[in-house]
C-alpha cells in the first residue's frame, strides 16, 4: 500500500551503519585529542597556564633621598595616589573620562592627550589619567570605582621636596620623562646591551620594556641641579614586580619577585645645613640675590642660597604654562642659580687680589703710600675714586679699609694685567667648580690673550686701571668669591668647594692644583679686611660684631651696572635710590669669621641693591647665625651607600 517506503532492501540501514562508523571515527578523533591534551600533555599545559597569568610589571626603584649634613630631608619621596585607565576595558573612553572629571580635575588638554595616546598605542596599555592626587580625590575615585570599568586607582611613590623652594636651584627638580629623554635612554640601553642594528626583535623588546618602565606614573627623571647630574645614581635600577593577572591585565595576586625587584637609588648627603640655608633665604627676603657660606678648612658648602626661588614640587607633576611663564618672565629671575650660574663684576671685593699680586711681584710694599685726590689721570682720561674729595694719603691696609680706588689704579698699573690675572686664577676665579650639579659659570678673568681671542683687540693699559678696582671685563660668581675669600683666610691650605659629603662619591671639582698664598701676604690682606669692619673709617663698620666677642672681617664691593658719564659727574652722580631697579648697582660683600681664627666664609650679593650697604648687614647676620650653630655643625649625617661600589650606577658626569 505504502508507495514511498524508506528502507528498501535494508539499504538505508546499511548506509546508517556506514555513517555511524564515520561518526565513530570522528568521535574517536575528538576523544583521542582530549586524551592527548589532557592526559598526556596535561602537566605541560598546567605549567603554561601558571606562567600565563604571571606578568612582570615595571616597578621604578625608590629614588635616592638627598639629606643635609644633619640628616634633614631635602628631597625625599611621598605617596603618590594615581589613576590609570585601560582603554580596552572601558565602555567608551571619552565618556569614562568625562565621568571621571566629575571627581578629579582633568583639563581639556589632558583629556585630548589621553585620547590621542589611546589611539596611538595598544588598547590594553594603561594610560595615566591623573597622579599626585590628594587623599580626598583618591578615595572619591576608589568609592566610585565600580561605576568605572577600566579605571584603576593605585598608590606609588613620587618625589617631594619637603623644604619647598629653599634648595630648588642646587637640587633641581624631576619631571616626567619626555620623548627625547626616553629615546636617549633606549639608545643607551641598546648600546649597553650591544644589540646590533639588524637585531630588530631585540631592539623592539628593549624599546617596549623601557617604555613600560619610563611611562610608569611614578617614574621621574632629574631635570636640573643634583637631580639631573646624579640621575643614574639617584634613580637606582628600575625592576619589575611579578603579579598574577587575568587576560585583560587586572591584578589578581602579587607574587614573590625578589629576583627581579628594583634596586633602590643611592642616597646623597650634602654639606648643606638646612637651617642656615633657610635663614639666609629669609634674611635675603624680597631681594634678588644670593648667599654662600663655606667651611674654610674643608671647603664644604653650608649654604648656597639664591632668591627668589621656585617651588620644585610644582614641576614634579607638570607645571602649568602660566606658572612657568611667570617664573620665566620675572625680572628677578627665580629659575636662575645666582650663586653658581650668576656672574657679576666683583668690584672692590677684587682689590685684595690686586694687592696680593703687587706684594708677590714686589712692586708695592705694605707701607708704600699713595696720595688720593679723588681722581687720577692716565692716558688723557680721568679715573675717579668713589670718594669725591679723595682719601688723602693711604697705604695698602687703609686703601683696602676705605676701598680707595686711586690707590688700586696706581698699583694695578705698576703690577700689570698679566700678574693680576694670574693671581685671580690662583685664588679661584675663572673656574667652574664641579659640585655634582648642572650649571656653573666660570665668569671671565681677562688678560691680553683673552682679549685678543675674544674681542680681536689688543689690551689697553687704561683697562688695567679698571681691572685694579674689579671692573671691566672681569666677572665672577658668588661661589668663586667665596673660594677667593677662603683662600685669603685659610692658613696653609687652599680650599676648594665641596657639596657631596656622603652617599654618592664626590665628583672631581676640577680645581687646579694651587699653592697657598704666602702667609705674609695673606696677613696683609686680612689686616685690611679686618679694618674694613673693625677700625674707624672702614666701609662696613656695622658688620664687624658677630656676637660673643667674635669679629667678622670682610670687604665691600659695588658692581656698576651702568656707565657714569662725564656730564653726569659734573652735575653730580645720580643716587642709586633714584634709578629704576634694574639700573641700580649690585651690592657685594665677602667676609670670613672669626677674624682671629677664620672658620667660615660668607659671601652675599644683592642684585641691584644700590651698593654694598645692601649686602653686608645680611652677611653679618648669616655669619652670626652660622657661628652660633658651630658646635653642632661638626657632627654629620651618615648614610649607607648601597651602590657606591657599583660600577654601572656610579655618578658619572657623562650621564647628564
Amino acid at each position: 500500500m505504502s508507495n514511498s517506503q524508506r528502507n528498501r532492501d535494508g539499504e538505508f540501514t546499511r548506509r546508517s551503519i556506514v555513517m555511524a562508523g564515520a561518526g565513530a571515527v570522528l568521535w574517536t578523533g575528538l576523544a583521542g585529542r582530549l586524551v592527548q591534551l589532557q592526559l598526556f600533555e596535561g602537566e605541560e599545559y598546567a605549567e603554561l597556564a601558571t606562567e600565563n597569568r604571571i606578568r612582570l610589571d615595571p616597578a621604578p626603584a625608590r629614588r635616592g633621598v638627598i639629606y643635609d649634613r644633619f640628616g634633614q630631608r631635602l628631597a625625599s619621596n611621598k605617596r603618590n595616589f594615581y589613576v590609570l585607565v585601560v582603554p580596552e576595558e572601558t565602555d567608551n573612553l571619552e565618556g569614562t573620562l568625562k565621568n571621571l572629571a566629575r571627581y578629579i580635575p582633568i583639563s581639556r588638554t589632558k583629556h585630548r592627550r589621553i585620547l590621542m595616546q589611546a589611539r596611538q598605542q595598544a588598547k590594553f596599555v594603561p594610560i595615566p589619567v591623573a597622579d599626585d592626587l590628594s587623599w580626598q580625590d583618591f578615595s572619591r575615585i576608589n568609592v566610585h570605582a565600580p561605576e568605572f570599568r577600566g579605571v584603576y586607582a593605585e598608590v606609588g611613590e613620587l618625589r617631594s621636596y619637603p623644604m619647598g623652594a629653599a634648595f630648588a636651584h642646587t637640587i633641581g627638580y624631576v619631571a616626567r620623562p619626555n620623548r627625547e629623554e626616553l629615546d636617549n635612554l633606549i639608545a643607551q640601553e641598546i648600546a649597553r646591551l650591544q644589540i646590533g642594528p639588524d637585531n630588530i626583535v631585540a631592539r623592539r623588546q628593549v624599546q617596549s620594556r623601557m617604555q613600560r618602565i619610563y611611562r610608569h606614573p611614578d617614574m621621574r627623571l632629574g631635570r636640573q641641579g643634583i637631580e639631573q647630574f646624579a640621575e643614574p645614581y639617584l634613580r637606582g635600577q628600575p625592576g619589575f614586580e611579578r603579579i598574577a593577572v587575568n587576560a585583560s591585565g587586572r591584578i589578581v595576586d602579587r607574587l614573590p619577585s625578589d629576583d627581579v625587584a628594583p634596586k633602590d637609588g643611592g642616597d646623597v648627603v650634602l654639606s648643606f645645613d638646612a637651617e642656615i640655608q633657610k635663614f639666609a633665604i629669609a634674611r635675603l627676603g624680597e631681594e634678588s640675590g644670593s648667599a654662600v657660606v663655606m667651611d674654610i678648612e674643608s671647603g664644604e658648602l653650608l649654604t648656597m642660597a639664591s632668591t627668589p626661588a621656585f617651588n620644585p614640587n610644582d614641576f614634579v607633576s607638570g607645571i602649568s604654562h602660566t606658572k612657568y611663564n611667570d617664573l620665566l618672565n620675572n625680572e628677578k629671575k627665580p629659575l636662575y642659580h645666582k650663586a653658581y650660574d650668576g656672574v657679576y663684576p666683583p668690584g672692590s671685593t677684587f682689590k685684595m687680589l690686586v694687592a696680593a699680586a703687587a706684594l708677590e711681584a714686589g712692586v708695592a710694599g705694605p707701607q708704600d703710600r699713595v696720595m688720593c685726590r679723588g681722581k687720577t689721570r692716565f692716558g688723557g682720561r680721568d679715573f675717579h675714586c668713589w670718594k669725591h674729595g679723595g682719601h688723602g694719603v693711604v697705604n695698602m691696609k687703609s686703601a683696602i679699609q676705605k676701598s680707595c680706588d686711586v690707590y688700586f689704579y696706581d698699583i694695578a698699573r705698576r703690577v700689570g694685567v698679566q700678574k693680576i690675572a694670574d693671581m685671580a686664577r690662583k685664588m679661584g676665579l675663572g673656574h667652574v667648580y664641579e659640585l655634582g650639579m648642572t650649571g656653573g659659570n666660570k665668569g671671565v678673568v681677562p688678560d691680553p690673550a683673552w682679549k685678543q681671542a675674544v674681542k680681536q683687540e689688543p689690551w689697553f693699559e687704561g683697562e688695567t686701571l679698571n681691572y685694579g678696582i674689579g671692573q671691566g671685563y672681569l666677572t665672577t660668581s658668588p661661589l668663586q668669591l667665596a673660594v677667593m675669600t677662603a683662600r685669603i683666610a685659610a692658613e696653609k691650605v687652599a680650599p676648594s668647594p665641596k657639596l657631596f659629603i656622603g652617599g654618592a662619591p664626590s665628583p672631581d671639582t676640577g680645581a687646579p692644583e694651587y699653592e697657598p698664598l704666602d702667609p705674609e701676604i695673606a696677613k696683609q690682606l686680612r689686616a685690611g679686611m679686618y679694618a674694613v669692619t673693625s677700625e674707624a673709617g672702614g666701609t662696613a663698620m656695622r658688620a664687624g660684631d658677630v656676637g660673643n666677642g667674635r669679629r667678622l672681617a670682610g670687604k665691600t664691593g659695588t658692581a656698576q651696572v651702568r656707565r657714569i658719564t662725564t656730564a653726569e659727574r659734573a652735575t653730580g652722580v645720580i643716587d642709586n635710590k633714584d634709578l629704576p631697579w634694574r639700573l641700580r648697582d649690585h651690592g657685594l660683600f665677602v667676609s670670613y669669621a672669626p677674624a682671629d681664627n677664620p672658620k667660615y666664609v660668607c659671601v652675599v650679593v644683592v642684585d641691584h641693591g644700590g651698593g654694598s650697604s645692601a649686602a653686608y648687614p645680611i652677611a653679618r647676620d648669616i655669619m652670626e647665625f652660622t657661628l652660633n650653630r658651630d658646635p653642632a655643625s661638626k657632627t654629620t649625617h651618615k648614610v649607607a651607600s648601597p651602590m657606591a661600589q657599583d660600577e654601572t650606577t656610579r655618578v658619572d658626569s657623562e650621564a647628564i
Partner: protein
Amino acid sequence: MRMIAERLTLVDKIRNLHWSLLLTFIAIASFGTVVLVSVTLKDPQMAGIPWQHMSRFIFVLIATIGLAVAPIRIWAMIAYPAYLGALFLLVLVEFMGTMGGGAQRWLDIGPTLIQPSEFMKIAILLALARYYHQASENNRTPNLGNHIIAALIIGVPTMLVLRQPDLGTSLMLAATGGVVIFFAGLPWRVIFAGTLAVVISIWPIYQFGLKDYQKERVYTFLDPSRDPLGAGYQLQQAKIAIGSGGVEGKGFMQGTQSQNNYIPEQHTDFIFTIIAEEFGFMGSMALLTAWAIALIFGLLIANRSTTVFGGLAAAGVVATLAFYVVVNIGMVMGLMPVVGVPLPLISHGGTAMMTVMLGFSILLMVHIHRDQSMVLKGII
C-alpha cells in the same frame, strides 16, 4: 493522498515522544547552563546570561514539542515553501543585506536582524527529504537525474552563502545536504568518483576561491605560533585551558584560564574550553558521550521511520548536529581551522539555538509519526 495508519490523538502523540532523547537534550542544556554560570558570574554585565540560556531553552523546548506533534504531512507540505522562502531571503541578503564582520549575512527586517542562512540549514533538509520522498513513490529508486536535481537544491543556497562570504555555513549546507543524498541512495561508484574529484579540486579552490581572511585562518590553523596575538593566540590559550584541565579539571569556577578571560568568546564559540578546564577529561568525555548518545538516538529514529521524508529529514538533522559538535570541538582543540560554529545547547546565542531546536523537533516529529506513511503530490 491517503492516510494509511490510524489517526493519532494528541495523547498518543505525547505518549509517542522520544523521552530518552528529550532527557539527553535537557541534560546537555542544563550542563550548558552550569558552564555559563561559571563563565559569567564574575562579570556583572553578563550575569543574566545563564538564566537567559535556560529560560530560552525551556521556552523553545515547549515550542519544539508543539511543532513535533504537528502532522508529518504539514511538515512535508511546508518543505518547499520554506526552502523557496529561505532562498528568496538569501538573494535579498545578496542585494540589501547588512555587513557585519566583513561579511554580508544579516537581513534588517525592521525590528530585528535575521540570518537567512540559519533557516536554510533546516529548510534544505526538509526540501531534500520531500524531493526524495516523491522520487521514491511507487517503489521507484531515485535515479542519477534525481540526485543531480538534489545537488542543485543544495548547490544554489550554498553558493549564495559562500558569496556572503560565510565559509562555515556553506560547508555545513553542502555537507549535511550531501549526507541526505548519501542516505537517499547515491550509487557507491558515484560516491568514489565524487570523492576523488573533491580531493583533486581542493587546491584550486583554496588558491582562487578563498578570501584572504579565510586563507589566514587556514595558515594560522597549520601554524598557531605564526600569529601569537591573533587567532593563533586564541587557539594557543584554548589549548592551554583544555590541557591544564587534566583528568578531573580544576573545579567549578576554578579555571585560571577561563576565569581570567584568557579565552575570547568563551561564552559562545569557545565554551568547550571551560568545560575541559574546569571539569577535566571526565567532564569533556561525559559531554562527548551525551552527544554520541543523542546522535545515535537520532540515527535510530531515522531508521525506524516508515516514510522516506521522515528518514531523510531525521538523518539530515543528525548530520547537522554532528557537524556542529565535531566542528566546534575540533576547532577549539586545534584540529580544525577556526570557523564561527557554536557548540549546540551549550554556547550562548539565540540563532543557533533556534536551528538546533528546530532540528530537534524534526527528530521528535519523525519519531512520533514513525508508523505513518504518506503520499504526496504536486509541490504543495
